[in-house]
């Protein structure tokens, strides 16, 4: 799997995690690109849950998340970037 395929794979797996989370919370969503996570109902506590699932899915450890990182991961792309950096 080359790097672009790996990123695409990460995006797909994370998309599943987010959809599972939204379903579990009965949050109805329409914007399937999930650009702004907070806007579709994933608040800071919800983000902790999503990150917990991501750690399990990808076998990574996020540790303490500083505010700079937290700002980035309010978007789906920012979250993908975080996971890719942790995988590396």
């Amino acid at each position, binding site marked *: 799997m080359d790097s672009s395929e790996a990123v695409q794979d990460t995006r797909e797996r994370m998309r599943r995690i987010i959809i599972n*989370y939204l379903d*579990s*919370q009965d949050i109805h969503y329409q914007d399937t690109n999930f650009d702004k996570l907070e806007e579709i109902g994933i608040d800071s*506590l*919800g983000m*902790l*849950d999503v*990150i*917990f699932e991501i*750690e*399990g899915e990808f076998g990574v450890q996020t540790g303490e998340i500083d505010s700079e990182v937290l700002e980035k991961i309010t978007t789906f792309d920012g979250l993908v970037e975080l996971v890719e950096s942790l995988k590396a």
Partner: protein
Amino acid sequence: MADVSNAVAITGMGVISPIGNGVEQFWQASVAGRSGIRKIERFDVSKFACKVGAQIDGLENSPYYKNSWKALDLSGAMALTAASEAMAQAKVDQGHENSRRFGIFIGTGTGSITTHEASVCKVVAGERLHPLSILRAMPNASLLELVSHCGFGGPSATFSAACTSSSHAIGEAFKAMQADRADLILAGGTDAPLSGPLYAAWSAMRVMSNWSGDPAGACRPFSKDRSGLVLGEGAAFVVLEKIEHARNRGVEPLGYVVGYSSNTTFEHSTRPSVEPEQIVMQAAMNDAGITPEEVAYIYAHGTGTKANDGTETQAIKAAFGDTLAYKLAVSSPKSCYGHTLGACGAFGCVTTVLGLRHRIAVPTMNLAEPDPECDLNYVPGEAQSLPEGDYALVNAFGFGGSNATLVISA
């Protein structure tokens, strides 16, 4: 006719209980003396002398009990379900414009201990803990969820004083409204003590029934052959509201909290004592501005332990005098649904409101041969009409020496 000039109205009630979910089912089962006590199958009880408990059924599909990050344990799910029933009956909307004057007071003896136990098991097994484990396991976890669910921004608190917890929650809510700290408070209690480790701890304390016959007979308050309490799980909530506030909303009160008192038996942390129990009942009646002659019924603490039932009987005689004490109806429905610990005072509140409205004293079951020391009218075996009197007391006495009595009218 009861004087309710200093009272707080009860405008909604909700119950999740081992004898039925919802106030109506609970009341019908209470009047009929139906038992919710059965052999425990949730965990292995083979090593314990007591093998029964009063479990909740029917919450599996509750919207508050699902397998998600906000998943509540049974204690929280029962609280939300019972509270929702009470709110619906009181016609209280979420996000009400006056919600900064609405509060929530919860009583719980064991809180979210089952969630804490599960976390400990994961740590021991080397598994990761969910990042929200603290929020789920802290003693006020149910309050956190209720506050979020109801959108109430007034005073809120969790009371944890063993078996008196929800009596304090209701009583202190009553006092908070008398002091004009709130217009409406959702108050009640929840407890889910039927987990393996907690059950083992209760068993080790040797206060549980060792009855080996039909589980329905295991809790035998005031009976000569009583051998201890039976643990039960459940939640009960009432919406307390200033009378004027209820009137302005066009909501008819179901009943009233008219008095409350609490004190402490400091001499011993678990052994009950007549004098403080007598004093707390008298102080609650004084707080209500009523005389013992005006009381028709006492929802007894009546746990079925040797220590409690005799002491409570003596305390009632001391508080009411020998003549009046024998005219009262005194009962312990714990014989049907066990001891719900921190929720039991709220169960008593709901039961007495309904009892006064219907003029019925619910029965104490399993009382074929009373203890000679327990010689009051405990309403044995079947419901009775209430004797004269517009008021009822709800007694609760807990470990740590905590005593509380509520005075209710309807």
